[in-house]
């Protein structure tokens, strides 16, 4: 394979290879110490980062995740070196901020972002598979709105300097987390979150970010593109991610089809479906799932950075207000959050149907 095909993956084969690499990396991080089915989960990791920054006080969900910081830096370096780092914003920052917040809350009610949906499904989780069905249903519904003319206002070009803020912050946090980890709340086991070794997580995060930026890896986006344009190259990447994770789980004996015994999951299938349907719907409207928003923000998209800010705020509130689910089930606050999220995204879709 030539260097150009690696740096600019466009064929289904190259995108599938990238997806398989990301899936294998995610399973590898789980084997190294991350929680089950949580080798890569943007929403869980953002909740951990929010805890480390003191936005909530639940120690077992607090850790300055080097994966997140690595994703930001990896995507930044990849976009900059490919001359795709372009600072723009002001398109619809409020919609992105609120949308990002609801995306995060939906993920927390389900317990996982769209990437973790794939990992939970690859582990045999039935609730994970139901969530995946909800995600596809949500994307399908949103795609109907795209077909009908939905789009958010185009962003404007902005001075390049403003785009460096997020990567610079990630770099400083990575330095602090590696050198002075006690600067963050619940930075260590046994109190903090389960995690793989710091260096391995940071290296994997850099790869996630760089590969994600080059391949445009996005679970919801790949479904949208397939439905909208009959272009299934991105879907090949998503499918390869799932197949690679499934194959490695089978090889490790970690595949166990189950509803009641799915680690860290709840068994409320209705809310698993609805929460992920809301996430799929919203992710298409604001142009990306949590992982994709991180990559876009790191490539200079300040509207995506607004979505990240919304997600971080929601991550703190999710724990403080008891919105996030647990193996015991879905809370009342979680159900309200999902319903409000549905209402918000549907109203946004109706409002911007012709790009008003």
């Amino acid at each position, binding site marked *: 394979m030539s260097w150009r095909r690696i740096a600019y993956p466009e064929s289904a084969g190259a995108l599938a290879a990238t997806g398989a690499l990301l899936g294998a990396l995610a399973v590898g991080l789980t084997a190294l110490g991350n*929680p089950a089915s949580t080798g890569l989960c943007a929403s869980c990791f953002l909740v951990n980062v929010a805890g480390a920054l003191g936005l909530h006080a639940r120690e*077992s969900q607090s850790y300055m995740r080097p994966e997140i910081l690595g994703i930001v830096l990896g995507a930044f370096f990849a976009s900059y070196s490919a001359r795709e780092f372009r600072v723009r914003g002001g398109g619809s920052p409020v919609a992105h901020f609120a949308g990002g917040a609801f995306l995060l809350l939906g993920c927390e009610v389900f317990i996982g972002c769209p990437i973790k949906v794939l990992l939970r499904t690859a582990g045999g989780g039935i609730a994970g598979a139901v969530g995946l069905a909800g995600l596809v249903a949500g994307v399908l519904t949103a795609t109907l709105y795209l077909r009908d003319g939905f789009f958010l206002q185009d962003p404007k070009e902005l001075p390049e300097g403003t785009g460096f803020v997020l990567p610079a912050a990630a770099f400083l946090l990575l330095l602090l987390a590696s050198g002075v980890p006690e600067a963050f709340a619940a930075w260590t086991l046994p109190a903090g979150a389960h995690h793989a070794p710091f260096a391995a997580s940071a290296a994997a995060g850099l790869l996630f970010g760089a590969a994600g930026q080059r391949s445009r890896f996005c679970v919801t986006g790949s479904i949208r593109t397939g439905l909208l344009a009959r272009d299934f190259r991105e879907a090949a990447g998503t499918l390869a991610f799932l197949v690679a994770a499934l194959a490695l789980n089978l090889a490790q004996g970690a595949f166990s089809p189950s509803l009641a015994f799915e680690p860290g999951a709840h068994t409320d299938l209705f809310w698993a479906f609805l929460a992920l349907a809301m996430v799929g719907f919203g992710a298409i409207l604001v*142009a990306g799932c949590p992982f994709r928003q991180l990559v876009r923000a790191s490539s200079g998209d300040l509207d995506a950075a607004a979505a990240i800010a919304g997600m971080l705020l929601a991550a703190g509130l999710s724990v403080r207000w008891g919105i996030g689910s647990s193996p015991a089930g879905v809370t009342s606050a979680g159900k309200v959050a999902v319903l409000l999220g549905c209402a918000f995204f*549907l109203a946004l879709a109706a409002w911007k149907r012709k790009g008003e």
Partner: protein
Amino acid sequence: MKNTEREGILGNPTGRRLTCLAIVLAGASLAGALRLAVSGDFRTPAQEPPGGGAGIASDRGGASAEVALARNAEAGGDVASALSHYRAAAARNPRIVDPRSPEFLGPSFEARLKGWIRGLKAGEVPGGGKALSDAAFLFRRMYGGCG
């Protein structure tokens, strides 16, 4: 993202009907939220049962009492009752089934739980569906999650 010029596999745009659908669904969602808020089923985080959500505070005293009851039942050979009390304890203080925590019930408990699950599935341990459900809850609590 702007509307694509290509047809794709979804057919033609669906026009104003989508707007009506959105308004109806948004209204239904809001109505559902309001209904949940005013019904007796709504619980604030402080009113959630112990262990009910990711951010619910723990009740260490209640958990210790449940663990003591579970150990008594276990000593008496009543696995189903023991699992029920262990579940109640984990709901009050999830850390007792968190292998990272100093409050963890220990590797021997983990091994016994796995043995009970095998036995319940095989029908070798009496207890039925309720006991298996309690064991499953403890298993889900012990592994995975967001942290």
